[in-house]
């Protein structure tokens, strides 16, 4: 059975998946919610990276637990998607080199 068509199909699928993960990562709300303790008082901040700089956006002394939960989930999902994106990029590299008939470096 010819393996090349299967690899070609897998490559096309992998490219689609890469695009999808990039889109999904862009869709996720930016930043992480953190709690700072200043002079025995707790304050919530949203930490963002903007133009290479880290920005802290004050959120208040109290934040709805549901929002805290959402940011936690988003953080986990972001890590997951980044790992999977890295995996799919390696897969694409492997498939491309296999289709060229070379061993991956």
């Amino acid at each position, binding site marked *: *059975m010819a393996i090349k068509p299967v690899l070609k*199909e897998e490559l096309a699928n992998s490219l689609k998946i890469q695009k999808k993960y990039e889109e*999904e990562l862009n869709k996720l709300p930016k930043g992480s919610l953190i709690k700072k303790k200043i002079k025995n008082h707790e304050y919530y901040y949203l930490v963002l990276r903007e133009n290479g700089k880290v920005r802290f956006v004050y959120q208040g002394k109290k934040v709805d637990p549901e929002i805290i939960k959402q940011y936690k989930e988003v953080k986990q999902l972001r890590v997951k998607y980044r*790992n999977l994106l890295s995996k799919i990029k390696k897969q694409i590299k492997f498939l491309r080199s296999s289709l060229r008939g070379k061993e991956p470096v």
Partner: protein
Amino acid sequence: MEKSQSELYQEILRRFHNIGVLKDVVLIGSWCIPLYKKYYLKGSIIPPLRTMDIDFFVPEPKLIKSSVDIPDILKDLGFVVDFVGKQGYIRLLHPDLIVEFLVQEQGRGSDKPYPLPSLGLNAQPLRFLNLLCEKIIKINIERIIISIPHPAWFAIHKLIVTQRRKKAEKADKDLTVAIALLHDLKNMKQSKLILEAYNSVSKKWQAKIINLLEKKQEKEILKIMKNET
């Protein structure tokens, strides 16, 4: 750490089993081949080549009793929803697997997806899938019961779809798998089931299958289908 492809596959089956979805679906496509080799056609030399696509056929979409959200159930595994085509049937993408749900295409057919609100997704309608459900075998994988088509019906279905494929490469792959499965079944003295599967398709498709096998000079398989054994 990310799960390997087979671990991920097992995890999907486990989750579908836990929410009761496996009762309503039949696993079809290339992921049946390793199951045939392991549980049914022991000693088969078919390469267990499978794609990333894991396809589930929903034979009776209106009779589904579960009310679940499959994209949400698989979200934490890293699956993302992809809408395919103009109208958008849903595929769940992951670097190791692509999960799709399929239904039988009715009437003249259309490019619209089939909504499956009880599963929280849209399915892709395709022709000839009902053939795969005419004889089902149930396989127990670590106490999870999964339905798959009998290999004879799977092979006959492949002999039909190979003639409808637009891509020659896919058509070749279907044909190779179908012929290998039929030889395995013949060697297992299951010629009667091959004939039964063959007889379950229309006369028009029977003629097309015979024509194809004649071109490929598959004399032994032809003998079975012409009931000359």
